[in-house]
């Protein structure tokens, strides 16, 4: 086989311009695909990380119907203390869950004593919220970032609200909330920090201590609107989602309907559609690569067979078995694919390295100066390389088959 590859290599070198051109096409295709995967993959991973690590968590557990009405933050669809305890038990009993954080969500009127506007709030356990959303503290653009996210009597407000209401860190503000019975309750808070707003659900919410939220809503028991859940390994999202749905499915209401529901970040964020679009584009780009390799390799191999008909006749006449002739031409396609893959991979890695050195930034929604840090996994490189090599061999198959089936007499007479 080594000798077949050696001869194949020399045949490619014989038509060096054509070989070079085909290899360049394969290299361009490889570089295009790997760069696209690296850049969009980095963008996707970063954006998903922003959502899961600073707003949503990987999973959320709600009372049935809460998500459908989440724009209204319905107090009557909170989990009672009993249901919340059962969720805690299920989460603690799931080894794949790293941490979880209970939230009491509410809508309130926000006043700076001069103007009033509305605000969406999360009542949180600061320690659990910080553990579940490790990037949340990083969104604090004004105010102290050390210590707990919020203490009793403090509030984190979104940047847009701070600007609009001209509120600074340390200012006192008033929150007024309508309670479940229709009565109204108010409480003063000191602004502890200003949060960078991010696109998507929950990206412009404020944060107060859970006990303050409960006090503001005058809730007699420790109700929970949602549990944000962080997984040890985000790749297990689908499996843990199914597992929790199964474990929490036994909690049913009086009519036997499920009482609780579990959603992944993708169910809750519109960015999931953008991520799916990126995946679709990646597939499309891969198809283009396959087409480039297929057409260019097939073209060069068809030409190679056509130009070497007499040579094929000679090697067939002296007794070369048809399978060896087939192998000879397949080896040429294989070498083209391998050479293009090696050079394409090296150039792609160099380009990705260069992009990382350039520290390119971009904006997404309200977020500015997001650092583009393209990375490519060895699995992606291996998969693309395998596709290119396999397609190169497949593209050579028809010309190689034709060569191996050639009648030696006809081939020897070819002019």
């Amino acid at each position, binding site marked *: 086989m080594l000798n*077949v590859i050696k001869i194949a290599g020399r045949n490619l070198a014989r038509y060096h311009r054509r070989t070079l051109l085909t290899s360049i096409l394969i290299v361009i295709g490889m570089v295009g695909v790997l760069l696209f995967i690296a850049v969009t993959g980095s963008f996707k991973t970063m954006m998903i990380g922003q959502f899961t690590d600073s707003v949503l968590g990987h999973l959320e557990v709600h009372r049935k119907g809460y998500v459908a009405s989440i724009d209204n933050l319905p107090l009557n669809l909170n989990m009672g203390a009993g249901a919340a305890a059962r969720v805690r038990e299920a989460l603690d009993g799931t080894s794949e869950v790293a941490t979880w954080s209970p939230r009491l969500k509410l809508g309130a009127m926000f006043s700076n004593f001069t103007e009033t506007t509305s605000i969406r709030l999360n009542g949180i356990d600061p320690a659990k919220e910080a553990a579940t959303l490790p990037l949340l503290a990083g969104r604090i653009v004004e105010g102290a970032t050390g210590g707990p996210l919020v203490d009793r009597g403090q509030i984190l407000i979104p940047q847009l609200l701070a600007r609009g209401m001209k509120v600074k860190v340390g200012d006192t503000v008033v929150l007024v909330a309508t309670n479940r019975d229709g009565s109204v309750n108010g409480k003063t808070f000191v602004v502890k920090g200003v949060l960078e707003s991010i696109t998507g659900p929950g990206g412009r919410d404020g944060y107060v201590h859970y006990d303050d939220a409960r006090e503001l809503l005058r809730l007699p028991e420790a109700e929970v609107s949602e549990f944000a859940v962080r997984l040890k390994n985000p790749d297990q999202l689908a499996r843990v989602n199914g597992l929790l749905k199964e474990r929490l499915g036994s909690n049913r209401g009086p009519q036997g309907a499920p009482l609780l529901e579990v959603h992944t970040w993708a169910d809750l964020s519109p960015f999931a559609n953008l991520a799916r679009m990126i995946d679709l584009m990646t597939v499309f780009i891969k198809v283009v690569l396959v087409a480039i390799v297929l057409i260019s390799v097939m073209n060069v191999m068809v030409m190679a067979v056509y130009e070497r008909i007499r040579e094929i*006749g000679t090697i067939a006449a002296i*007794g*070369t078995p*048809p399978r060896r002739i087939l192998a000879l031409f397949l080896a040429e396609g294989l070498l083209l694919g391998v050479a293009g893959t090696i050079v394409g991979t090296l150039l792609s890695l160099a380009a990705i390295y260069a992009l990382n050195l350039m520290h390119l930034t971009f904006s997404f929604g309200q977020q500015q100066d997001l650092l583009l840090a393209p990375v490519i996994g060895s699995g992606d490189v291996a998969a693309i390389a395998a596709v290119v090599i396999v397609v190169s061999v497949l593209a050579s198959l028809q010309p190689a088959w034709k060569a191996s089936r050639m009648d030696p007499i006809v081939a020897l007479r070819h002019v």
Partner: protein
Amino acid sequence: MSLVEATGLAKSYRVGSVEVPAIKGVDFAIEAGSFVSFVGPSGSGKSTLLNMIGCLDHPSSGTLKVLGTDIASLDRRGAARFRGEHIGFVFQDFNLIPVLTAYENIEYPLIMVQGWAPDKRRQRVLQLLDAVGMADQAGKRPDQLSGGQKQRIAVARALATNAQLVLADEPTANLDHETAYRIIDLMKKMRDGFGTSFVFSTHDPKIMAEAEVTFVLEDGRIREQAGEVAHA
């Protein structure tokens, strides 16, 4: 048993709806170790006969046995295997593989056809390079060799696999007279040295005279046989 034995051998080709006879029922025998030529004008059927003897083509009727094998019984793969094991070819245009050196061209059938071990291969190639007087040109590619040198390498390649029969279709047609004689002389020496039978076609009367047995073909028939059939 003769090396090649033809009885009532005929071959015709279909050109459109017309059947064109190329060989019209010939009988002949070629003995092992002989030096044979088929001569005749263009279109007399020399190449067709050589193609059939070389298992590159099948007879339309009659029988043709090469080394006792009825070549009509061989399928495409079987014919390729048979050629690889028993028959060597020398072509008018030399037909060396341009990307390989002289050494590698001789080595080619040993690798691709018979799969010899490297040491044995090297020994055989060096022996043949020496035998055809090309040991000092081993590293050159065909485009660096003269016509005569190319044909010497082609003869060595034909002999590489210990073929019992070498078929040469107009091996001297593209060579000047002096070189042509040298090639015929070389082929004779190889026959003497390796015991291989050589069958070649030519339309050159002077070259024809070098053969020990000559079959004169005319219009698809053997008009005349000259010389003694040597028995091995």
